């Protein structure tokens, strides 16, 4: 097959290979080892295929690439329309990159109902990739909702003690919020007669949608509420700590690494793409919530006695940076937001893997149970330190680049945003290093801890790629930014006009 043939089918392949693997897995006999290997091979295959995307991505070209647009259902007018730009391509790669690591990290930790676990994990992967590749609002909404079911089952079936409570809370929170988005999507469909994102965007820009003026603020809010819960933005974040603490490690990795980015991706694609004026008009309170989230998340993380809860709250803080970057409406802010999304996916994913590794040995996340772990587990401690440093934004590691760009953008928009946001960086250093100190330094406090085995082969295999990626992203961010930048410019085009209008008045 030549590359051009592959170009139009690559997204379909990458999206549905995990699902195909899950279906085949149903028929694989219950020999746990075979099932694990099969899941690993499937997710690696998806990863390798997804490498085709950056390899053949045209940097000069704005708009969507690798598009496929087939009519699917005539009534209602739904197209099977997929495509990626600089934003979604990297999120697809993030998903395919993290999935094999999730399989590896679950290699020994999941012993019961192994088959169901990996089936759910693979289905999860398909739905996540689908969210980023769909360009049809219906298709997007379907994948968006479909992520809920495998994730709720992963939490509710394979999670820890309060898993059912966490799963139901997660499901209800995000499901109810998405209903508002569905209402907005249906309104747009009723007026435009198409679910196609590009057609809808076109109709809105050309002013062909009747009654759009009065409805637009509500439509904006409908989308925004669904995304804000997913991110999660400050007052609607309460599902996240519960979901994370109860989720199995792989679930946490995908939840923090990819699922939260669905929210920020949605803001970039739909709120900014479809409703630029409303986004601009609502920027001040959204930025305020993002700043509160940064500070609040960091402060609450500081006092957590539970390691996993600490990482969960740190996610709230980091995702606050993303929202801050997006609603700064500057090109460095948007570039930075996108980069933070990717960096956070890698670092926090790795942090959750590390937390999972210690939980497997001690069956607890309580920080006070540990101390002096650097002695019995030196390799583990080294990996942990490296990832902690990348997460708190040490220069030359991935966390720094994104946060720096976001803060630069925030300063441009309003100096105050930048100042408050920058303090979040300091807080994150505090809570992460303090946690590290309590867990790894000092004397070994407990007898059990002195005999803990260090990392095994599979665990190393799961951690090495993440650590290497954290370094590469910090040293050579241009690999990513060069294809993100055109998408950013494309997104900001209407804002140049909006700002000009405001200035004129």
């Amino acid at each position, binding site marked *: 097959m030549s590359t051009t043939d592959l170009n139009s089918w690559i997204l379909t392949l990458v999206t549905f290979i995990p699902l195909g693997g899950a279906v085949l897995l149903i028929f694989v006999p219950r020999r746990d080892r075979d099932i694990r290997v099969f899941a690993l091979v499937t997710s690696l295959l998806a990863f390798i295929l997804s490498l085709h995307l950056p390899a053949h991505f045209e940097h000069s070209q704005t708009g969507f690439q690798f598009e496929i647009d087939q009519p699917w*259902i*005539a*009534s*209602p007018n739904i197209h099977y329309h997929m495509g990626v730009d600089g934003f979604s391509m990297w999120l697809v790669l993030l998903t395919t990159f993290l999935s094999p690591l999730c399989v590896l990290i679950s290699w020994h930790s999941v012993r019961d*109902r192994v*088959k*169901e676990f990996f089936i759910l994990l693979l289905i999860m992967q398909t739905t996540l990739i689908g969210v980023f590749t769909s360009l049809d609002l*219906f298709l997007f*909404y*379907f994948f968006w*909702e*479909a992520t809920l*079911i495998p994730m709720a*089952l992963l939490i*509710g*079936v394979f999670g820890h003690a309060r*898993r*059912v409570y966490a*799963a*139901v809370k997660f*499901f209800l929170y995000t*499901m109810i919020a998405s*209903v508002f988005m569905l209402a907005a999507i249906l309104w747009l469909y*009723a007026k435009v007669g198409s679910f196609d994102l590009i057609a809808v965007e076109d109709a809105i820009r050309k002013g062909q949608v009747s009654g759009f003026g009065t409805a637009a603020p509500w439509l904006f809010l409908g989308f925004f509420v669904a995304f804000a819960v997913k991110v999660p933005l400050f007052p609607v974040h309460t599902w996240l700590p519960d979901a994370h603490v109860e989720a199995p490690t792989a679930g946490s990795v995908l939840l923090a690494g990819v699922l939260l980015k669905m929210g920020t991706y949605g803001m970039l694609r739909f709120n900014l793409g479809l409703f630029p004026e409303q986004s601009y008009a609502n920027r001040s309170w959204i930025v305020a919530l993002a700043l509160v989230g940064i500070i609040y998340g960091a402060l609450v993380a500081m006092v957590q006695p539970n390691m996993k809860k600490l990482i969960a709250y740190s996610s709230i803080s980091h995702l606050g940076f993303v929202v801050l970057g997006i609603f700064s409406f500057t090109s460095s802010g948007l570039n930075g937001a996108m980069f933070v999304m990717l960096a956070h996916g890698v670092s926090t994913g790795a942090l959750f893997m590390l937390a999972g590794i210690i939980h497997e040995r001690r069956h607890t996340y309580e920080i006070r149970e540990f101390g002096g772990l650097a002695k019995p587990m030196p390799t583990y401690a080294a990996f942990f330190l490296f990832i902690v440093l990348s997460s708190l934004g040490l220069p030359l590691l991935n966390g720094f680049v994104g946060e720096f760009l976001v803060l630069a953008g925030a300063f441009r928009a309003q100096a105050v945003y930048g100042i408050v946001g920058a303090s979040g960086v300091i807080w994150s250093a505090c809570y992460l290093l303090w946690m590290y100190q309590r867990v790894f330094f000092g004397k070994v406090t407990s007898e059990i801890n002195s005999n803990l085995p260090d990392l095994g082969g599979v665990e190393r295999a799961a951690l090495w790629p993440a650590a290497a990626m954290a370094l590469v992203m910090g040293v050579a961010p241009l690999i990513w930014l060069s294809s993100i930048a055109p998408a950013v410019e494309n997104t900001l085009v209407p804002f140049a006009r909006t700002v000009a209008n405001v200035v004129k008045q």
Partner: protein
Amino acid sequence: MSSVEAIPQTADYVRILPELVLSLFGIVVMMLEPLIDERRNQQALGTLSLIGSVAAILASLYQAAYPGFAFWNMVKVSNFSVFFHVLVTTVAAIVILTSYEYMSVERIRAGEYYSLILLGTVGMCLMSSAVELVLIFIALEISSISTYILVGFRRGEAASSESSLKYFLLGSFATAFFLYGIAIIFGASGSTNFDKISQVLSSEHVPALAYVGIALMFIGLAFKVAAAPFHIWTPDVYEGAPAPIVGFMSTAPKAAVFAVLLRILFEANAPGRMWLIWVSAALSMCLGNIAALVQTNIKRLLAYSSIAHAGYLLIAFATAPEVGISAAMFYAAAYAAMNVGAFAVVSHFANAGERYVTLDDYAGLGRRSPTLASTLTIFLLSLIGIPVTGGFFAKFYVFSAALRANLVGLTIIAIINSAIAAYYYLRIIVVMYMREEREEVPIMHIPLALGAALVISLAATIYLGILPGRLLGYAQRAATEVLPSQGASTSGTAFALPK
């Protein structure tokens, strides 16, 4: 072919071919029962009935090539009738497949059971092709009487006999209403044929009596589809009846009655239907869903859910016929697929004497039988209306038809109800996957026949969720035949189909 023929011709018989096939097989099954060895007759008679229902499906498809009237304008074969024929006979085939195992576990005499299913299906088929009120009444009776008896087939159980008696008494009462309505309509229009009735009801001066007649007929039919406020019998009857039969009676006769209702309300162009439907639909959805929230018996829960679904479906009847008919037809098909599948799982899991039918028994099913649990999950997701299942597009078409008819209030009630319904369906899923079983509930191996039934209904549910276009297109074409003929066709023959 002229309208008044002294002797029926071959074409007439082709137009009732599926009914003939079903009757033949039903009678043969009944007569063979005493001749076949007791130990083998379950399997053999079941297979024979299955062949009969498949033959009826083929006959319906064959019949589609010969549209037109038969038997002095009493029967009309059209895409509309073929649609419901295939739907009803397919449901019958799936129910027969589901019953294989149930029969041997419950020790039910196979001959009467299977032949009653086949004969009941005759009535349901005839209901969808009859265009004459007296014939519709007879067809309705054939279908009802068969189900009355089938409901009482768990003879050892008091609950089953109770539900049979309850269903019979209330059902007869409702049928009487229907008959009374026919009489009044005849008085008002001078005919029992839809064509004539349509002319009278479309004219400027609709006789006041006609409103009464329509209302009475609606009461009779609303009882049969379990629409509020005529739904009271449903939970008790469903609880007592054999589980495969509940799957049958909650889908096939309902679809047939909806076909009749479509004809009465649209083809006969019934006046004043709007508010009747509005109230009944809103009540059914609210009462059904709210009552379902507190059920602990899965059969009762699905009974209340079926009341709610009748409510969603009724919405389509209050909309414009151009979109409403096809939406209702699609809904009936999608609902049949998912509900008959859900009851197949329930009847397999219930085990001897239907011991395991409470929600608590389903705890831990996800661990003990992943296949059964995941299949039921998909049916439940479809009942909720999650995309990529038939249930989603069913709701989508009905709600968008309602919005187009400016029924905003009713649509909002329906959407709120869908959200409420999600809770109790999801509760079953949560119990299956996330709760540990309290006592060991035996899980039986899934036999081939049941597996086939599950695969067919699962495939139909997902097919309608991924590619709804073909069925909807067919339903739209069929709908044009039921549209009120605009003033044309003054002759009684009315052979020309409206375009």
